[in-house]
């Protein structure tokens, strides 16, 4: 434990400094800014009401590099779906394993994120605001950078990837995989990744966070995706961490004219997680689908925050977040659509659907619209329900067993999100999550 007064000093000491690092000042400033703006968010803050990160600061997490005698991951220790994945880059406790040997091809290049960005790189990496909003509109494009945990990542980041796709290249899928193991002390990871799609290019990225730990662990990744004109990104985020690991992650999409993002967040972790997904639609014709699925058993807790900023005319966003909650699992959906002044012709939908399989499961849902322009189409809604008794009887009357009938309905509910995931082995991870739901205590009880 760290005394409240010593928390700031503790995290300043954890900044990974290298000799002659001209970026050290920026890192220190980011950490100081984090503490100036309130430090670790508490539940008294509106935006963090259900996120309960109070304990994070005082746990005194240290970087993995402090762990003595940490043996890097061996290939045999990789889960089958990872070793079988065509193109993949790996992190083991934040240590890069193979990106250095990545063979560029099909217009795709992947590198480890160096600890010190060049001056030109800073903006691309999301360390500073992406620039002024388009003419005729006003939008707050810095919102994702004001997330306190993003500030902390900007100060403490110690690993990550830089993915680039060249003009009109059609690349992917590529897997960015990070695994963490228990090293016996509370360890934290601050991965930072940047994905850049040049105009007209296409890419499928799977970003996965995996690991198990009995000792307290914390993963706090930031991912920035920049799409040029007409670029198309298929992004799938898989959260697999279990045990005593807290996950606080962010992904931000920045879209130029006619760029398109389809994003899916699969929360399959057994612990606590909060994920903030932000899409900034900066030019006409930009279009984004934000999907999410949480399969919660036991005391798992997933907190999904979304923000779609329509900063330009004629942009589209569609959000679909689903939660399946068994046992004492709990979920939060806090989704916001912002239509900036002048962003006429915006088309935005937002849906949050929750399936409660247990009386003790809890969901908080808060869909929000902030519309500051005329001539827009916005719809949102939230639903919380249990399995349909009529449907269960219908299935059973055809000879399907009670458990199977429950499972079929749950799978049908989740399928709307899972079926859109473009990689078979990733869909199989969701299927394994559904199997855990079926085996959970409250299932069909």
């Amino acid at each position, binding site marked *: 434990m760290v005394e409240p007064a010593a928390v700031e000093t503790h995290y300043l000491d954890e900044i990974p400094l290298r000799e002659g690092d001209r970026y050290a000042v920026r890192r220190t400033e980011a950490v100081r800014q984090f503490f100036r703006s309130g430090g670790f968010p508490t539940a008294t803050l509106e935006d963090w009401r259900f996120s309960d990160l109070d304990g994070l600061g005082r746990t005194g997490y240290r970087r993995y590099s402090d762990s003595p005698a940490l043996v890097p991951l061996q290939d045999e220790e990789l889960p089958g779906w990872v070793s079988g994945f065509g193109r993949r880059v790996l992190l083991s406790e934040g240590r890069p394993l193979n990106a250095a040997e990545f063979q560029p091809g099909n217009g795709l290049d992947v590198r480890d994120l160096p600890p010190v960005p060049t001056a030109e790189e800073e903006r691309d990496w999301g360390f500073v605001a992406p620039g002024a909003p388009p003419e005729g509109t006003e939008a707050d494009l810095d919102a994702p950078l004001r997330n306190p945990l993003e500030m902390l990542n900007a100060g403490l980041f110690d690993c990550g990837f830089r993915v680039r796709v060249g003009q009109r290249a059609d690349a992917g899928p590529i897997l960015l995989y990070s695994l963490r193991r228990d090293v016996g002390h509370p360890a934290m990871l601050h991965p930072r990744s940047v994905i850049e799609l040049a105009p007209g290019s296409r890419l499928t990225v799977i970003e996965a966070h995996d690991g198990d730990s009995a000792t307290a662990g914390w993963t706090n990744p930031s991912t920035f995706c920049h799409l040029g004109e007409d670029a198309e990104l298929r992004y799938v985020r898989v959260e697999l961490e279990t045990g005593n690991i807290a996950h606080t992650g962010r992904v931000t999409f920045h879209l130029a004219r006619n760029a398109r993002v389809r994003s899916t967040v699969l929360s399959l972790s057994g612990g606590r997680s909060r994920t903030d997904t932000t899409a900034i639609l900066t030019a006409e014709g930009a279009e984004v689908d934000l999907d999410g699925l949480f399969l919660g058993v036991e005391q798992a807790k997933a907190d999904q925050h979304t923000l779609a900023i329509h900063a330009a005319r004629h942009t589209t966003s569609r959000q679909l977040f689903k939660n399946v909650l068994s046992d004492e699992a709990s979920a939060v959906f806090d989704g916001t659509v912002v239509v900036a002044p002048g962003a006429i012709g915006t088309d935005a939908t937002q849906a949050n659907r929750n399936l409660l399989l247990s009386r003790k499961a809890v969901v908080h849902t808060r869909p929000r619209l902030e519309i500051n322009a005329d001539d827009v189409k916005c719809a949102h809604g939230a639903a919380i329900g249990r399995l349909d008794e009529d449907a269960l009887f219908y299935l059973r009357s055809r000879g399907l067993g009670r458990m199977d009938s429950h499972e079929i309905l749950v799978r*049908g509910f989740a399928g709307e999100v899972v079926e859109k995931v473009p990689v078979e082995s990733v869909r199989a991870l969701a299927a394994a999550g559904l199997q855990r739901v079926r085996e959970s205590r409250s299932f069909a009880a």
Partner: protein
Amino acid sequence: MTPLLEICGLHVEVEGREILRGLDLEIPLGETHAVMGPNGSGKSTLAHVIAGREGYEITGGIIRYQGEDIAEMEPEERARKGVFLAFQYPVEIPGVNNTYFLKAAVNEIRKHRDQPELDAVDFLSLMKERVKLLDFDVDLIKRPVNEGFSGGEKKRNEILQMTVLEPTLGVLDETDSGLDIDALRIVAEGVNRMRSPERSFLVITHYQRLLDHIVPDRVHVLQDGRIVESGGRDLAHRLEAEGYTRPAAVPA
């Protein structure tokens, strides 16, 4: 020989209200019986009780299928033993593919009969054949169960499922409602093709129209939760001409 279905003095309550009040009905193996009755007389309640729906409390009487008391039997057990209910209001199940669902059901029932499971290829060819016989839109079987189906398509899907699952007792609850005359004829042909000495049907309907096409061995009149009259196929015509006898006036 014991009848396939044997119901004696059956009393059933739904949410504390008595709906069936001493119902008697016997259907021998190989016969097709019709149950007719006005709206609200308890026809669907009877169908659901036979299929084993929860929430229907049997407060008296006996219900036997193949000589066995099934009052406590789970609905899936009944289905595996050959009971099939074509629903009056088939349920829409978003996200669950029709073909997938029916294949799972067929194999569950085959497992119970010690028959080998059908693989995807065998199942699809079976489906294709049955779909054609019922003049069913083949695209519908690729969609989620009943989702966005018209009333008539839902009813046809029920009969399609029945022809694939090949039950011993088929209970048809107002399958004719929502069908135009051509669809009615196709559905009736589908049922007639299945009639055999090894299989019985209970055809529940409000109108005799369906019984012109599925000609029953016997007709029963259900009123106020009881069978009040039974007879041959002519009874249906008489009911059509004269209407259901009004229930005895309740003394003021």
